[in-house]
């Protein structure tokens, strides 16, 4: 039975022949002369689209616009500066997911650079690794720099719960968890963003919160949305469905990713998050500004696990990288290649902005996976 999860849930959704036929169906569905501006909200979709080379295959009128759905890309510099300040404390071991280590903070500093200066910064692949580390190193303060959308919050909640059960007094989290609906609301309602004809909605976020969470948004902004998986056929089917809705003048929430997503999501995960976290009054998003009730912090009952309380941190005014158009890119208002620094001063090995670092960042996707223009030799 080895590999059968892949056989059932991955391989068929990458089938070249079915893909070819689906692309044919899209080409036929798209009305000649009409433009379909579709935003893939999730960085996961951005990554999949680039990795499978989909833009070249879609009809000219179908334009895919990268959204702000990359948690590390939208994290404002001030939050990274907080992590750097924590990492500089000798008693602290700062743990986080690998994505975050290379993101430029104020002045171009990064957690990797902090580590090279001697700070104890460690990459984990699971929130529970951070808890295990705290248990193993009782004389150190282990801080988990928690980040992510609704997908990633429940694993953080499990970690806090576990730390509570194990009675650890040296574990805390720096919560940067954010919520997708306020961001989509801002994109659809805000100024400076392009007019969108439809949205490819979050995959694994929806596994947790359910596709029902987006119904109000679609209706309010009269914009169709299709929740889609991260395989290429998932994306193509969502594109097909959105074109169909646009053509029909509908604005519904479709669920292409029914194998993983239900209307209500994972109630156990939602309940755990609800028990531990509460919305902050507002939270800053790179590109989108401060959005009300868009970020989560631990409830007062769990304040002892909250690094902001434990270490009396306040969020500094971070200095965003000068010249970087990440904010505009994240709204879909600017194409990465239109940023003057793209592929010249800002390159994957020497990124200026977060969007060039994360594997799900729009600029990294544009630089690494597409047919990038060659840079001039140094």
């Amino acid at each position: 039975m080895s590999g059968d999860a892949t056989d059932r849930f991955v391989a068929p959704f990458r089938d070249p022949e079915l893909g070819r036929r689906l692309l044919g169906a899209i080409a036929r569905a798209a009305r000649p002369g009409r433009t379909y501006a579709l935003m893939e909200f999730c960085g996961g979709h951005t990554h999949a689209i680039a990795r499978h080379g989909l833009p070249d295959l879609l009809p000219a009128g179908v334009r895919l616009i990268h959204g702000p759905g990359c948690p590390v890309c939208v994290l404002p510099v001030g939050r990274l500066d907080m992590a750097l300040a924590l990492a500089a404390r000798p008693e602290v071991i700062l743990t986080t997911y690998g994505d975050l280590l290379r993101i430029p903070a104020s002045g171009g500093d990064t957690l990797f650079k902090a580590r090279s200066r001697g700070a104890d910064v460690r990459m984990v692949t699971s929130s529970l690794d951070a808890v295990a580390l705290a248990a193993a190193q009782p004389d150190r303060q282990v801080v988990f720099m928690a980040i992510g959308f609704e997908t990633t919050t429940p694993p953080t909640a499990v970690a806090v719960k576990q730390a509570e059960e194990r009675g650890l007094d040296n574990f805390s989290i720096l919560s940067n968890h954010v919520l997708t609906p306020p961001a989509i609301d801002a994109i659809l309602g805000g100024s400076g963003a392009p007019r969108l004809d439809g949205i490819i909605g979050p995959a694994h976020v929806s596994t947790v919160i359910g596709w029902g969470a987006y119904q109000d948004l679609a209706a309010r902004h009269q914009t169709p949305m299709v929740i889609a998986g991260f395989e290429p056929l998932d994306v193509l089917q969502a594109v097909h469905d959105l074109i169909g809705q646009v053509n029909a003048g509908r604005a519904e929430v479709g669920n292409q990713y029914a194998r993983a997503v239900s209307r209500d999501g994972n109630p156990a995960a939602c309940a755990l998050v609800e028990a531990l976290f509460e919305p902050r009054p507002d939270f800053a998003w790179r590109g989108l500004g401060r959005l009300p009730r868009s970020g989560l912090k631990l409830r007062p009952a769990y304040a002892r696990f909250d690094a902001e309380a434990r270490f009396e941190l306040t969020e500094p005014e971070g200095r965003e990288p000068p010249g970087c158009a990440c904010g505009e890119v994240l709204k879909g208002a600017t194409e990465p290649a239109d940023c003057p620094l793209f592929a010249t001063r800002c390159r994957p090995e020497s990124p200026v902005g977060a969007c060039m670092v994360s594997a799900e960042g729009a600029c990294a996707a544009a630089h690494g996976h597409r047919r990038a223009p060659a840079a001039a030799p140094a």
Partner: protein
Amino acid sequence: MCLAVPARVVEVLPEAMARIDAGGVLKDISVALVPEVAAGDYVIVHVGHALGRLDAEEAQHTLDLIAEMAAAGEACDER
């Protein structure tokens, strides 16, 4: 960040852990978020946690829909 992969639960372990098989790769993960999970179930795995169960029938249904949609288009072409 939202990287997640499908896997089959090989064995449920104590303390809300389970051994999963993701494309021939075996790993121990937390199933605290899917308390009802059993061996043989399919789950979607994210940062060392099962986030939810996967429904093989729904997967097949989606594939059927895609095939139909693609075929419908081609049928149109043939006309």
